[in-house]
């Protein structure tokens, strides 16, 4: 659904989106990686389970929540990619780490 603009920097950083390798430009956000990976949805809402993708890309809507390097519910649009970063969909409410 999404493509990078033609003048954009080359995609040099490899991350894992839901386990699949995906290359994105340096300085891109994890939310951009989610969009470029072409997932139909990158989270399901906790209450009704509605599918969502990143939306505002500027930290206000929380629709980009994802599990990043094992940490649940991070706003992917506020996180810059690093090589090897693991970005996984956030399915419903996170687990609370009950011992």
């Amino acid at each position, binding site marked *: 659904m999404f493509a990078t603009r033609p003048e954009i920097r080359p995609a040099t950083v490899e991350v894992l989106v839901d386990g699949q390798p995906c290359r994105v430009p340096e300085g891109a956000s994890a939310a951009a990686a989610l969009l470029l990976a072409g997932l139909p949805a990158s989270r399901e809402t906790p209450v009704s389970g509605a599918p969502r993708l990143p939306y505002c890309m500027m930290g206000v809507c929380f629709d980009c929540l994802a599990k990043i390097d094992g940490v649940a*519910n991070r706003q992917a649009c506020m996180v810059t990619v690093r090589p090897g970063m693991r970005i996984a969909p956030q399915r*419903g409410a*996170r*687990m*609370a*780490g*009950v011992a």
Partner: protein
Amino acid sequence: MNSENHDALVVGGGLVGAAIAYGLQRQGLRTLLLDEGDVAFRASRGNFGLVWVQSKGLGAPHYQRWTRGSAEEWPSLAAELQERTGIGTGLHQPGGVHICLSGEEFEKRGDYMARLQREAGNLGMEYRMIPGAEARDMLPGLGPKVAGVSWTPYDGHASPLYLLRALHTAFTGLGGRYQPNARVERSTAAPQDFSVEAGGIRHRAPRVVLAAGLGNADLAPRFGLSAPVRPERGQILVTERARQVLPMPTTTIRQTEEGSLMLGDSKEDAGFDLGQNPEIMRQIARRAVLSFPWIAELNLVRAWSALRVMAPDGLPIYDQSERFPGAFTANCHSGVTLAGTHANRLAPMIAAGALEPEMAPFTARRFDVRHAA
């Protein structure tokens, strides 16, 4: 100025006014609910959502009975609202606990619960003091610092915002009229004959109920009543949603039906200041994490403060005007808990024209030195 007649006027569209207005309309009284709006202090939109029994009414058995009565009325109120409006209030009454973080707290709590039980008299009050090890089996992830908990089967929680919406929807669904942005300005009072000006219209009725929260302090004297209520600030923290883990609410930590953890709630004398402060927020978070260490991993997503409606002795005020029969007032700091009795017991008394004798101890005349003497 246009003038309209009604069977009853209720001033204040928060939880207290909405519950009473709904109850009156259900009794067949054509009721008008006048509500100032967002410029007012509105505890009903900022509270913690407990339907709570176990910390209420020490030294005031009438209040203990009234609170227990409300917890009993709640399931039928919730079912009725759901049926009339399709809005679920998220009521769960699985019992609840008060967490004690030291041996000393646990011991004091034990004395407190024993006294409450003695004061309950014939009504009885079931409770247990549960030491740490056993409590940890009952509540997942309860921290090692917890010395023990007090438990009663009567406690629960609900969504205060859905409750407010359901009461309003049920009230208007029965034909009641809700008038927002209608601060009561001028008013006149005579026995069974009241008029108030609000939103540019003069409204008349033989009954008026003052349920304007902190606004009651100014309104009450005009109707031959007294409501010396003061603000008491409470701050609340809310975490992101998590899978359901808490099987029951505690006095200061509850997990909503949607999964958020609410952490509350301070008791501060800060006047009409709705500010928040980091020191108090830290205390709330610290106590929560000592109770359930896993809460530390969760992100906080919201925090706010709101003002409780507090009488000098911390008990509700329900009163009727002697000078102007037909005028009533209702004030409390537990408007969620007491929604059941407000709709199902208090409203019928007001509709019938007088408070029953069991309500006498709640009169504001208890603050009158001459009366007390």
